């Protein structure tokens, strides 16, 4: 091939073709760009534009005085976060609550899988549907209503206490809601009660997607029901499970605030205050919007650190980074 002289015509043709190809590619690119543009606008509007609000952390902002009339205070609010050990201790406690409750949620994320498998084994269709409906419904109840149910049942004059007192099992009402005992665990139970049925839907869908031939083959080989679950269902569900796990890890710091907001009171506040709730309490409850903004920036900092850790782990274990 080395000795072949290139025909100038061919070269021109190639060049023309190449240009045409480039043009088509550019056109295609523009089309793709247009397709994705609306979503980019949304991302910018809802994820990047709000970052502009960080500016409040550097001012002494107090409504109704507009920002441009407020005093610029530099890093005053950030210094305040670490000005004394009690304050730092409080922040650490808040972060500990956030991490602990997120970890507990992740640690129990296998429960919907088990629930879905169990549900799938119920042969009576009506019974199964009833159970599924009943367990899915709580997901659609807002936390405020969940709390009113909790209050009706577990307050000192609620159903449970009344019942136990009338049975003469207890003399003093048990404080379920207004005590700081096992706060993390209680919160976990509530969120599990609310989310279990809903969380299992995706696994139920995956189960129906498993190739029936696998089960048939298993049965031919004489596998018992438990063995079918152990060696077919669970391995087949694992990919879905890991995707869901990844998603919940990415929501590590966003473990919600409405649940904790409605359940918080003077007694359990030490252990129920997650980062989002703390920011709300400081900003809205104590009227310190600038300080609250500064604290909320902490969340982004922690997120970046977490992302970095996950990235390092991924690099080490898989050899490729996520970002």
């Amino acid at each position, binding site marked *: 091939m080395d000795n072949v002289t290139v025909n100038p015509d061919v070269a021109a043709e190639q060049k023309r073709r190449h240009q045409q190809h480039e043009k088509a*590619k550019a056109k*295609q*690119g523009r089309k*793709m*760009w247009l397709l*994705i*543009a609306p979503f*980019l*606008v949304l991302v*910018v*509007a809802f994820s*990047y*534009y709000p970052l*502009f609000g960080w500016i409040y952390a550097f001012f*002494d902002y*107090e*409504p*109704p*005085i*507009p920002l*441009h*009339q407020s005093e610029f*205070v530099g890093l*005053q609010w950030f210094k*305040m976060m670490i*000005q*004394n*050990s*009690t*304050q730092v*201790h*409080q922040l650490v406690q808040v972060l500990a609550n956030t991490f602990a409750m997120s970890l507990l949620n992740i640690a129990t994320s296998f429960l919907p899988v088990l629930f879905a498998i169990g549900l799938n084994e119920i042969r009576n269709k009506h019974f199964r549907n009833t159970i599924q409906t009943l367990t899915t419904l709580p997901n659609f109840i807002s936390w405020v209503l969940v709390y009113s149910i909790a*209050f009706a049942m577990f*307050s*000192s*004059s609620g159903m449970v206490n009344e019942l136990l007192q009338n049975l003469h099992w207890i003399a*003093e*009402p048990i*404080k379920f*809601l*207004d005590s700081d005992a096992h706060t993390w665990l209680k919160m976990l139970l509530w969120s599990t009660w609310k989310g279990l049925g809903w969380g299992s839907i995706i696994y139920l869908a995956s189960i129906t997607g498993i190739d029936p031939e696998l089960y048939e083959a298993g049965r031919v080989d004489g596998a018992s029901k438990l063995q079918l679950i152990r060696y077919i269902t669970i391995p087949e569900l694992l990919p879905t499970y890991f995707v869901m796990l990844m998603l919940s890890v990415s929501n590590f710091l966003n473990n919600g605030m409405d649940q904790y907001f409605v359940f918080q*009171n*003077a*007694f359990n*506040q*030490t252990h129920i205050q997650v980062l989002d709730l703390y920011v709300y*309490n*400081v900003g*809205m*409850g*104590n*009227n*310190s*919007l*600038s*300080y609250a903004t500064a604290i909320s920036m902490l969340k982004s900092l922690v997120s970046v650190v977490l992302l970095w850790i996950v990235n390092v782990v991924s690099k080490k274990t898989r050899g490729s980074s996520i970002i």
Partner: protein
Amino acid sequence: MNTMNFRSKVSGGLKKAALVTTVAAAALALAACGSSNSSSNKAEKDDGKLMTVTVYDDMANYQGVAKGWFAHYVQKKFNIKLKMVAPNVSGGGNTLFDTRTAAGNLGDLIITGTNHVNKLTKAGLLTNMTPYMSGMKYIKKYSAATDQITKLAGKKGIWGITNSVSSESPTKSSEGLEPITAPYIRWDLYKKVGYPKLNSTDDLLNALKDMQTEARKETGKNDVYAISLFKDWDSTMMQNAGQNLAFYGWEVNQPFALSKGNGSAYESLIDSKSQYVKGLRFLNKAKQLGLVDPESTTQNWDTMYSKYQAGKVLFAYWGYLGQGAFNTTSNMAAGKGFELAPLKNMKVFSMGNQPTGNTTFIGVGSKAKNKARLVKFINWLYSPEGVQIQQAQTTGYSAGPKGLTWKMKGGQPVLTEFGKKAQLEGGSVQVPAKWGTGTWKDGISTLNYVAVMQYDKDPTTGYSYGYVTWPSVLKLNQTKLSKDWSAHMDNATSSMDYLKKNKELLVGAGVSYTAPEDSSTVSTTRGSIGTQIVNSSWKMVMAKNDAEFNSLLSNMQKTAKGLGYDSVYKVDLKNAKAKNALREKTIKQYKEDK
């Protein structure tokens, strides 16, 4: 397509999009800033049309458009419908104030704390009422109250008028027959347990214990408790525990520096021996004796109030709570009801009349329409008719509209038959069709605003606005209950009478003192310490034993100090001293004026 290529294109696009959107958003934000209003000093014409007026009201306990006889009256007189915005109802502290002011419109009529005056004028959210003042004789009458606001605004003009203004002496109690905060107990049960001597608060607790046993026996119900609490009014302290302060002459509802009503002593809130911690100990002792309603930690005012109405609570910090809820005509005729407890050595704190008004004010919002009419409305609130009608809100205040609830008879105001039902028997009586619809109770003013002190003299009758001191009503209130109480209380005619005779009353001269605004670091520190104090206080009250109480107390002191309590205390102490200095000045000035 090569993914790498695609990615780089996307990220390039992303950059562009980000740029475009940021620029657009910034432009929007700038445009929003540019359109901020410029307040004019010229009077605007009234279009005379029916209008709905948004009232931002810190005092209101009702949200939405006002209904009933008061709303009916206002609509007829001013062609105005009142739409209430009530932070008390929506909850969440200052959230509503912050969001509404940040949006640039707090309301057409504004009723809020005087500590907000400066900020509101600075942000241009209040109207200068000066151009509308001709003929507004009642606002002019209380010029000391408008001057007070002008001073706080730091800007020339009339920006509002303070509440609870009075023409009476600042050293005279403003609280009529019953002090607002004092130990009130169920007198009928106190009688049943044999009028035990109350030499200290411990004796009071023991008496309450016996009374609780008695009440449970009487009703056969186990959910009768001597004490029931609520948390709605907690701020930087547990409000209920702080009421004990008033029993011994300390001013209530103070921040971290507590002061005697006459400025003779000062204390730090969290000091182990402070009156506040004593208040906590009192409640904790009660808890340990089984006297505290376990629902205290979760219930709100409404739930608690209905318990008082049902006779399930035996002790009240406030006259308007115990007596307001339980002392109905029929209960009192049967000898049942709340009365002042003869606690030995008490020195009940009572607020004096305030010539310059209290620390709430009413003003007109800068975005309001028909401002002339709104100023006329405010003027009416301070007129005799306005006070009679608008302040018929809580038991013991004004009687209501003349001709409906009261009339003049032999030169004296007397309650009509309707008036008796409305004011003395719970108020669930239907108003006559002429006056609107619904019951009396549901139709009272939702503003919940005291413009003029109710024991000031009504120039149209020659007697006070508050009907409870009318001779005709005093005669009506001679009941089995009051007679028995009087017989055991040195034949006193009222609680105030008893306290005065026994020198157990301490009047804090009435001044309108608004503390200078905290610096933002102080207010933030105050906020986070306050949360700790409130939370710890509740835990302390519910502690199982003294050891737990004490460890919680030292924990609270440590946390508060760690968060910077001392620096805030210093500010509060300075303010408390300034307030008491102002008191002395006011007393001196009043004497000179006379």
